[in-house]
Structures are given as structure tokens and as C-alpha cells.
């Protein structure tokens, strides 16, 4: 579509860059420079509450302390890893399953897909606020109903074993609709010929899904999985509102820990070191994302 025509070559070479320039300058000023600044700060010791003490260069001290002498950081890293894997796996499986159901040409699927958009409209912070009462033993209906049908009713937010799963659960509530609707859109845009050919060959519905539809869906699913993984890696709002990282540190994520170190203890250097390490992981995600997604987007 982008053939270079005669008309284009006449144009000033400057126009394309002029059109991009404001955006580039803005991105440089508000995205790139802060990231660089943050990286620099990771090598300093600086506590903001002590105005009289100037920032002091400490080399790798912040990193060494995080990686060798800070069990809370390691807990946060492990929690974050669990959160990423659990949310992505659960949401993908559920999302694909429900999308297949919605693709069955049932009635009301139109209304259903519209209603599925609603969780996506809510701020994660609002979702956190809402579930902090839904999951509460005294205010929420969930435990009452679980007990009514004879299931155990855990103390979702008050038990160190359940706090992180609760965050997974709530995140899953909010974001599974994204996976459903994205997969559904993918299913509907599939070419029907291979599916019908498989049908003629007598493939079961599982085989049709596994060997025909799934491979065709894979590219768009990969993008979705990576996007969810990156988002999940940054989880902050839900932790803040649901558990504030507790009980103990059982639901503290890296973002939340960075926030606590940087803005409750005002240890700017160590918080920047956490941010720096997070950015490194993030870059890995981005590299994978680029190699997988560049044809999809």
C-alpha cells in the first residue's frame, strides 16, 4: 500500500519529521528523561525526609542490599512472579473457553458480549474498593453464599495464604472479559474453510479446536498474553486497596514495595533501584513482545 509515488518524492523530506517532532520532544521530555533520571538515582543514597543530607553516590550498594539483604524484596519478587503466571494462565484458559462458548451461535450472545465490557470500564482501584467489601467476611455476600452451598469460606484478605490468590481472583474477574472478547474477535475473523474441511474429515470438536482454530488464533493470543503479563507485572492498585501488601508481606508486589520504599520510607535510591530492576525485566518482556507481535500490530 505504501508504494513510493512520483508525487511523494517531490515533497520536502522535512515534512514527515516535522509531523513527528512535537510528539518526539514530548516523549523525550516526559518519558525518556525521567527514566534516565530514575536510573541515575538508583546509584545514590538519598532520603528525602532528611533535607540536610545531600544525595550520596554509593555505587551498587542499593542493588546489593536489595538482592542480598532484603528478604522483603525477594518476597515481593516471588509474589510478582506468581501473580504474573497465575493471572495469565487462568485468564487465558478461561478466556478461550468462554470465547468458544460465545462462538456457538447462541441467542443473547450480543447482549452478553456487551455486558462483558463493563468490568473493563472500571478503574482497577474501583474494582479493588468494590471487592474489598465483596470479599469481606462481614460485609460481603460471597462467603455467605459459599457457606450456604457447603463450601469453605476462606478469609480472603485476612489469611496470608489467601491474600495473593485473592488478588489473582479479582484481577481475573476484571481482565478475563478482555481475553474473552479478544479471542472471540479472533475466532470470528478466522477463515472458515479449514474449519469446514476438518469437519468434513470427521474431526471432533476438540480436534477442530486444537489443530485448526488454536494455531490460527495463536498470534493474537500471544499478543494478548504478553500484554496481560506486562500489566500484571506492574500490579499496584489492587494491592493498595485490597490488602495493602498484607497480611505480613504476603501480597506485596514489586510495584507496591517500590512505592513503600520510595514514598513511605522516602528512600529514593533504593526505590529507584527497584524501579531499575523492574525496567530490566520489562525490557525482556518488550523484546519478546517485539519479536512476537510486530506482525500482529
Amino acid at each position, binding site marked *: 500500500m505504501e508504494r513510493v509515488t512520483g508525487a511523494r518524492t517531490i515533497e520536502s523530506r522535512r515534512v514527515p519529521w516535522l509531523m513527528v517532532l512535537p510528539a518526539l520532544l514530548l516523549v523525550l521530555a516526559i518519558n525518556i528523561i525521567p527514566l534516565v533520571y530514575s536510573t541515575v538515582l538508583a546509584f545514590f543514597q538519598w532520603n528525602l525526609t532528611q533535607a540536610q543530607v545531600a544525595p550520596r553516590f554509593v555505587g551498587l550498594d542499593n542493588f546489593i542490599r536489595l538482592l542480598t539483604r532484603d528478604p522483603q524484596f525477594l518476597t515481593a519478587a516471588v509474589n510478582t512472579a506468581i501473580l504474573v503466571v497465575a493471572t495469565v494462565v487462568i485468564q487465558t484458559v478461561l478466556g478461550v473457553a468462554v470465547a468458544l462458548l460465545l462462538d456457538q451461535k447462541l441467542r443473547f450472545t450480543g447482549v452478553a458480549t456487551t455486558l462483558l465490557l463493563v468490568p473493563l470500564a472500571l478503574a482497577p482501584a*474501583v474494582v479493588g474498593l468494590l*471487592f474489598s467489601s465483596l470479599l469481606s467476611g462481614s460485609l460481603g455476600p460471597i462467603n455467605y453464599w459459599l457457606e450456604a452451598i457447603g463450601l469453605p469460606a476462606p478469609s480472603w484478605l485476612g489469611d496470608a495464604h489467601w491474600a495473593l490468590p485473592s488478588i489473582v481472583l479479582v484481577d481475573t474477574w476484571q481482565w478475563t472479559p478482555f481475553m474473552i472478547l479478544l479471542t472471540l474477535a479472533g475466532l470470528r475473523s478466522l477463515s472458515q474453510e479449514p474449519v469446514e474441511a476438518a469437519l468434513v474429515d470427521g474431526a471432533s470438536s476438540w480436534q477442530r479446536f486444537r489443530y485448526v482454530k488454536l494455531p490460527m488464533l495463536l498470534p493474537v493470543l500471544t499478543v494478548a498474553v504478553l500484554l496481560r503479563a506486562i500489566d500484571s507485572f*506492574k500490579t499496584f492498585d489492587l494491592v493498595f486497596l485490597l490488602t495493602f501488601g498484607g497480611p505480613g508481606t504476603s501480597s506485596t508486589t514489586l510495584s507496591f514495595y517500590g512505592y513503600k520504599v520510595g514514598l513511605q520510607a522516602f528512600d529514593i535510591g533504593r526505590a529507584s533501584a527497584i524501579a531499575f530492576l523492574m525496567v530490566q525485566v520489562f525490557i525482556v518482556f518488550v523484546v519478546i513482545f517485539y519479536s512476537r507481535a510486530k506482525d500482529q500490530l
Partner: protein
Amino acid sequence: MRPNPVVRALQYIGLFVVVAVFTFPTFWMVLGVFKRNVEHKARPPVLFPQDPFGAAADTIRFAFESSPVPLGHVFLNSVVVASATAIVTLAVGVTAAYSFARFRTGGTSLPFFILTLRMAPPIAVGLPFFLVFRQLGLLDSQLGLVVAYTTFNLPLVIWLLRSFFRELDPSMEEAALVDGASRWQALRYIALPLALPAIASTGLLAFIFSWNEFFFATLLTSSEGRTIPALLPLFLPRSISAGQPLGASFFIAAISAVPMIILVLFLQRYLIKGLSLGAAKE
């Protein structure tokens, strides 16, 4: 081929369960505004409040008048900040997206690089913002939040509009260029009108993402500049003390959520396209 009726029935049950699970919490949120404290704590859970409008009136009176929280001002801040972010990102993003789409400016890697900035961990940008804003006096201001929200909305706007412009047939613009129009004129008079629905939808997405943002709102505001998300922790059930209506917790959630739900219902699938950075086929 006609499906087995038992399977069909199970499928409908499945559909109902899915819809119920994903809509119930939102329904519960709205319902909560209409309940009194005894009903919030009652067992079994109350689905039909006794005096819904009286309870809602009390809750709203509490939120707007009888508590030391300037809710009206905060709501207005949210509107201003989200609108301004949408306008700024569109103003800067449209030409860039057009350039990326039509001229492949910077190849594929430059726009992709910009896109990745949308996804960077907020803490990495948030701390420097806090430190720089305190020098510039931008903390607790609407402008400060607009700047912060531009960091993650501008990359998205550029990316989505770029893909839209790429799908737009260039032949009309080329015809105009042949007739002596400048590239700027081609953009202004031909591409832009055609792109208007996409631009509006993209702007609404930026509006929604800014409206819903919590981290920067908590980090960068303290009083006058606060938006609704910054107030949410004040209204956690665990922060609502004896004698205060628990409905306020649901009310603040609802005034944050309901406008966004309405916007999203009008945006429909475009939301998925935006959230998936264009991977979803519309």
C-alpha cells in the same frame, strides 16, 4: 447439523453463569448505594433494601455535605484532567501517527519504541516526576497530572491512529497532492475528516484511562489537585468509621464507574482494540 438439546441447554446455562459472574459485582456496587448500614452487614445479604431512596439520599448527603471531603471539586478535577489529557495527546499524536503511517518515519522500530513506553512500570517514571514536580511546583496541580497521564496515553494514541491511517486508502490524498495541495492540507482536509470517528474513539480511550488512573493520582496530588481515584482509599469499608454510611464506599465507586461504563458501551469493540493495541480485529 443440529446440536444436541442437552448440550444446547448446558451452553445456555454456561452463558448465564458467565454473564452473572461478570456483571454481579457491578450490580452489587450500584445496589450498595441504596442500603443502610444494617443492611450492608445483614445475613443473609440484602438484595432488596427497605428504604432504598432514603438510604441513597443519606449517603449522597454524607458524601457531598456532611463530611469533610470536597467531592464536587474532586469530580470536576477528574473531568478536567481526563479531558485535557485526551486533547493534548490527540493534538500531538495525530500528526505523528499520520507521519508514521504514511512515510514510515523512523521505520517500524521508532513507533514501536514509543509504544513500549506506554507499558513501562509507573514507579520508574513516578519517582522522577515527584522529584522534578516539586522543583517546578507542579505537585497537586491539574497540569502535573495531565503531564503524567500524557506519558502513557500519547504512545497509545499514536499507535492506534497510526494503524488507522495505514488502513485508510491513500489514493484520495495522493490525488490532492497531484492537484497541488501540500501534505499538511491533505492531512487537514482529506485524511482528518475520514479519520474523525477513529480520532474521537481514541480520544475517549485516553479519557477513560486517565479518569481511571490511580498510581500517579495518589503520588502527585495531596489536596486541591486530587481526582476521584485519589479519594478511593478514604472510602474503603475499613476506613468508614462507626456511624458513617457504608453506602458512601459504593457511591464513590459508582460515580467513578458509571460514566465510564456508559462511554464504554458506546465505544463497544473499540475498547478491546485499544486495550490490545490494535491486535483485535474489529
